């Protein structure tokens, strides 16, 4: 119970409400510092993230433009070298153009009589497996560099109407197969041109039909490194309050897991799964003293007295060790011995995470690029605080007041590259922010965040 006495009362009654006007200079300094802070551009964390996403989206768009050009460029380049670049826009034009091609072909084929030109090479290089299969079926011995004149590009939304019929109504592939032996060169060239265009349209149709035909499931795994730190808001009335950012640092950790994905619409898919994630923070050089009054001028953190270890108060919470941190140096201060020391401390937290991620494909080509946004449930499964002097002292405990259930939001970009028709590899830069504070201390709010780069592999059915 609190005791009172005359001295206490005497001073309290006279001094509790004691007021004195401070010099004007104090307000001048306060005002100056406030205006400096206001002028300083304070970018909230979500704006930084939005800026990052915007930057990534811009890069992705640029990348798409580049890859899109690359798809067509081998054909156009050769075509330009071989003939004046003319587009095949109608059967009428086709006649003129193919006549020119005939000339080119005839002149080149003189050295290899009877050889059928293999115009599929360029298409194969540029458009992948569909044309490759057909290429095999009509392959000949020659691997000439002869290329068709194909400047037309595949329409964004191809339909069967985009398929160009051959002029004699004969199936294009059949004609090509026969062409090497029986047909004149001009037929081969004309049909090859048509064939290539049709192949491109068919490929796109085939790809779209998968997306449009409805849901498509895939399963996969992802893993990668992540940098984690925290956004902290501390009530200045909190005991031991200080500028924690001065001493504390983020740390590099790891995340990974398995996922299942549903292609729900043409450009939209939903992903979930089970992930493991480790996050945390560290103080690389924590200077401590016996307690706040003992700790000397350089100490950032107060710890144990001689009797029992006292908890360390830092931004993410308090953590206490089962034994005293090692005294490393003694200082004599006002005839008393002050013990200080330095240790490395690390607080790490492990979570099992279940996400719900929405993916919107902004680029839908050979390399798919998606914008990903998700919400995650993070369940705490590991909580460890360590201190070591990196020599012979090591002690381990846990951080107090950490919530078991947490919720976070994520934003990211997904790059997916198909290895085969149903196997793809992915690279996903991801930013995750804990929407709920992970600690239950009312004086501090700690929102961890992570930047990760996940690499993965997915198999679709």
């Amino acid at each position, binding site marked *: 119970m609190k005791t009172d006495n005359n001295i*206490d009362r005497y*001073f309290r009654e006279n*001094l509790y409400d*004691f007021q004195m006007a*401070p010099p004007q200079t104090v307000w001048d300094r306060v005002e100056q510092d*406030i205006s400096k*802070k206001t002028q300083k551009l304070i970018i909230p964390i979500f704006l930084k993230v939005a800026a990052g996403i915007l930057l990534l989206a811009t890069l992705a768009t640029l990348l798409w433009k580049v890859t899109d050009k690359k798809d067509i460029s081998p054909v156009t380049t050769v075509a330009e070298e071989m003939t004046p670049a003319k587009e095949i826009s109608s059967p009428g034009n086709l006649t003129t153009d193919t006549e020119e091609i005939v000339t080119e072909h005839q002149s080149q084929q003189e050295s290899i009589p009877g050889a059928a030109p293999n115009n599929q090479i360029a298409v194969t290089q540029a458009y992948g497996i569909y044309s490759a299969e057909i290429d095999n079926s009509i392959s000949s011995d020659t691997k000439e560099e002869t290329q068709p004149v194909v400047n037309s590009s595949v329409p964004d939304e191809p339909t069967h109407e985009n398929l160009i019929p051959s002029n004699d109504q004969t199936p294009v592939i059949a004609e090509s197969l026969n062409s090497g032996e029986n047909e004149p060169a001009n037929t081969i060239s004309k049909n090859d041109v048509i064939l290539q265009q049709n192949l491109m349209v068919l490929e796109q149709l085939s790809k779209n039909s998968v997306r449009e035909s409805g849901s498509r499931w895939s399963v996969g795994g992802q893993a990668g490194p992540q940098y984690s730190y925290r956004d902290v808001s501390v009530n200045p009335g909190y005991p031991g309050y200080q500028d924690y950012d001065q001493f504390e640092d983020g740390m590099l950790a790891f995340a990974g897991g398995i996922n299942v994905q549903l292609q729900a619409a043409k450009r939209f898919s939903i992903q979930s799964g089970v992930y493991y994630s480790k996050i945390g923070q560290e103080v690389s050089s924590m200077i401590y003293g016996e307690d706040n009054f003992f700790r000397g001028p350089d100490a950032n953190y107060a710890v144990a007295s001689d009797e029992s270890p006292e908890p360390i108060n830092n931004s993410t919470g308090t953590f206490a060790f089962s034994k005293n941190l090692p005294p490393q140096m003694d200082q004599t*201060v*006002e005839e*008393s011995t002050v013990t200080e020391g330095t240790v490395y401390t690390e607080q790490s937290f492990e979570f099992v995470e279940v996400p719900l991620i929405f993916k919107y494909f902004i680029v839908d080509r050979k390399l798919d690029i998606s914008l990903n946004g998700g919400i995650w449930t993070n369940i705490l499964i590991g909580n460890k605080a360590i201190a070591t002097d990196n020599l012979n002292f090591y002690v381990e405990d846990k951080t107090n007041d950490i919530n078991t259930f947490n919720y976070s939001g994520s934003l990211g970009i997904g790059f997916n590259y198909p290895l085969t028709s149903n196997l793809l590899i992915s690279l996903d830069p991801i930013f995750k922010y804990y929407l709920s504070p992970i600690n239950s201390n009312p004086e501090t709010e700690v929102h961890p965040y992570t930047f990760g780069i996940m690499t993965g592999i997915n198999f679709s059915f």
Partner: protein
Amino acid sequence: MVDPVENIIKGCCRKDPRAQKMLYERYSGQMFGVCLRYSTSAEDAQDVLHEGFLKIFEKIEQYMFKGSFEGWIRKIMVNTALEKFRNQYKVISIQDSAFEYDARSAEDLTDNMTAKELMNLIQELSPQYRMVFNLYAIEGYSHKEISDLLNISEGTSKSNLSRARIILQEKVKKYYSQTVRTGTTL
């Protein structure tokens, strides 16, 4: 009717410079009094006041109108003073119980000393005793709260308080003996 202080606080939340100045003008005198009690000199107190008001303006959104606003800013000032004190001074703790203050010996105190003179006596205390005496005797914190706030044991808090009382009592007595000798009246 809306409390005018509430409007000022809301203005400060919007970083309105006029509201910030009004808040400062309203509370700076009182808070400077708090800062003086925790400081060795007026210059130190001005620094604490400056830093304390910066924190108040920065964190005012956290106030949330729960509890007394004056209590909140006073707490920030006290914490700012403690933080400065920790960074500035090498402090020792006296944990033995050799200094048991006898409350009866101060019964003959009169109210003749001015608040400013009492403030000087407090400022002359060593930083450690000043902190504990201020927190316990004037702010009304318990030893348990002080031990949490300063991360010291309750025993340390009690012995520091005892010692501070003895020192203050001796100084008050000395003050009176001098005024009696010189015949000065207060």
